[in-house]
């Protein structure tokens, strides 16, 4: 051992310690860095895992299950063993009068809701802003927000009761004017006005919050200088309030168009009946009847896939437009 001329008397232990120290000090490689990160942050991933797993099990797995739209599904064989049929279900759908009717109704009802439902919250917000009496304003707001929180069953219950031919208030009032009672909910021509009117009644107040927030962001000095310039309240509405919230209006319009296919079918299920299918049946209620109630899972699944893809394209287009719009308009 001592024959080594370089031996300086250093102990083995200190050599080992030194080597270990050198190993420790060397720059960590890529994998080691990931290891370091996980060692330090593993708890973060533990917090994330349940949510991700939930998404996979309850939302992403059904997306995999969408293949049912291309299969001849049999409950006994299960999804995997059911044979592929290509676009057969889609061909059936587009030759199916009921489906085409549902598609038309969906678009029709969405358009009506958009035309009559979209301006209402804006008008309400502008009007609320013009109310000077704070207690009156607060009370009115408290009341008009309320229907948003009421379940669709209750709203439907109120509608059914109010429009009932014998006891309903609508027919009672019509009776005062000598009009014959109408059983509104069995008349297909009345379904859309009642449905759209109900949803405006239920949501317009609450939707005005977004615009009220935008109005609250307008600098009061704009109004003060307009007053000094001799502008009337009416002029201030058109020259200051509306132009100031125009970006919000446009963004909301784009979002609204993006969500056009989301007709609240829960309410339709509650209000429609075979007599009004002609005007009331939308894609989602069609899917519900064919699929859940009728057991034709594959055909209904195909209709659902069609609906989802169109909705996705609409939403993504709207997102892209609104992103571009908000960037150029704000900066």
């Amino acid at each position, binding site marked *: 051992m001592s024959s080594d001329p370089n031996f300086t008397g250093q102990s083995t232990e200190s050599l080992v310690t030194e080597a270990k120290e050198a190993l420790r000090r060397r720059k960590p490689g890529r994998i080691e860095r990931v290891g370091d990160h996980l060692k330090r942050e593993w708890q973060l991933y533990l917090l994330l895992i349940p949510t991700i797993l939930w998404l996979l099990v309850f939302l992403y797995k059904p997306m995999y299950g969408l293949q049912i739209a291309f299969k001849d599904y049999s409950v006994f064989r299960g999804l995997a063993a059911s044979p592929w049929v290509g676009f057969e279900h889609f061909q059936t759908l587009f030759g199916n009068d009921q489906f085409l009717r549902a598609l038309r109704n969906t678009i029709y009802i969405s358009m009506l809701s958009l035309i009559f439902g979209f301006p209402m919250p804006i008008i309400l917000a502008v009007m609320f802003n013009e109310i000077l009496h704070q207690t009156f304003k607060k009370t009115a707001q408290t009341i008009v927000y309320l229907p948003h929180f009421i379940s669709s069953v209750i709203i439907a219950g109120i509608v059914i009761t109010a429009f009932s031919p014998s006891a309903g208030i609508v027919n009672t009032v019509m009776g005062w004017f000598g009009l014959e009672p109408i059983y509104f909910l069995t008349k297909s021509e009345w379904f859309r006005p009642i449905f759209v009117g109900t949803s405006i009644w239920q949501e317009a107040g609450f939707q005005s919050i977004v615009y009220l927030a935008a109005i609250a962001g307008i600098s009061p000095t704009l109004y003060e200088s307009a*007053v000094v310039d001799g502008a009337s309240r009416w002029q201030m509405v058109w020259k200051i309030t509306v132009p100031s919230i125009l970006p919000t209006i446009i963004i909301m319009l784009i979002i609204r168009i993006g969500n056009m296919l989301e007709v609240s079918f829960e309410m339709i299920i509650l209000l429609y009946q075979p007599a009004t299918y002609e005007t009331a049946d939308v894609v989602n209620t069609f899917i519900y009847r064919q699929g859940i109630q009728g057991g034709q899972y594959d055909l209904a699944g195909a209709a659902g896939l069609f609906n989802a893809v169109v909705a996705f394209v609409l939403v993504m287009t709207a997102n892209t437009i609104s992103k571009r719009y908000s960037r150029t308009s704000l900066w």
Partner: protein
Amino acid sequence: MLNMNLYSRGDKLFVVTNMVLIGLFTISTLYPFIYIASLSMSTGFEARAGNVTLTPVGFTLEAYKQVLSEPLFWSSYKNTFIYTIGGTLMSLAFIIPGAYALSRPQLYGRRFWNLMVAFTMWFHAGMIPFFLNMRDLGLLDSYFGIIIGFAVNGFNIILLRNFFEGIPQSFEEAARMDGANEFQVLWKVYVPLSKPAIATVALFCIVSRWNGLFWAMVLLQDEEKIPLQVYLRKVIAELSDDEEFATSLLSAAYSFETVSAAIIVCSIIPILLIYPFLQKYFSKGILLGGVKE
């Protein structure tokens, strides 16, 4: 605000007209509720005859007696509480940790995970695959199925994530240097700092759980397990579909109209009780969730 006395005549007219219109809209919102409440406290005879317009006619609480003596009403009420409380707690148990993790800049693949959440808001597989999935998981006709199956939603995660992102990073860093681990940072610092946002999310969950109808209707066949809304729907559907059955219930004291009005009143009351909180947090919530993505 500006002094009313300084207004011109045109402005005064404008302000008054505006107030009247808002007043009318407010009354039209409130009236149906008053109508239903009055109906529920009128006699069945008067209700059937269409004599109830504003106040109860022939005041009676017979309809409530009918409702409260129905065991299905009580079991569905109890179930709604189970679904609402259980579902909200379950949602928070997923959403708070998930949103926190997604808000941390040091999370690897953060963009990917966030996209995975946002994507579920843009694309949904739809009714049929979701239903079949629940069936395959053995979650039909199960309390647990309803509670877990709707625990997470993208909007609530993003809302809370945005709030967490708005809290200065230095709060986490200070706690880290003090020796706190992620769980402690979240539980002892971020959760207390985020009480308003968590309250908002909790209220969103409570309202959607309390009002939830469609999936409870589809997934639950067992009458013992149905929530209030499904029960209410059964009653109302019978009212509109089955005239004969409705007539059979006709008596002097109560009618189908008054009974269903009474159930409506009973199921609105809890929402009215939490309404002050709802109003306080909801408007903030929709604005917060709208900021990004």
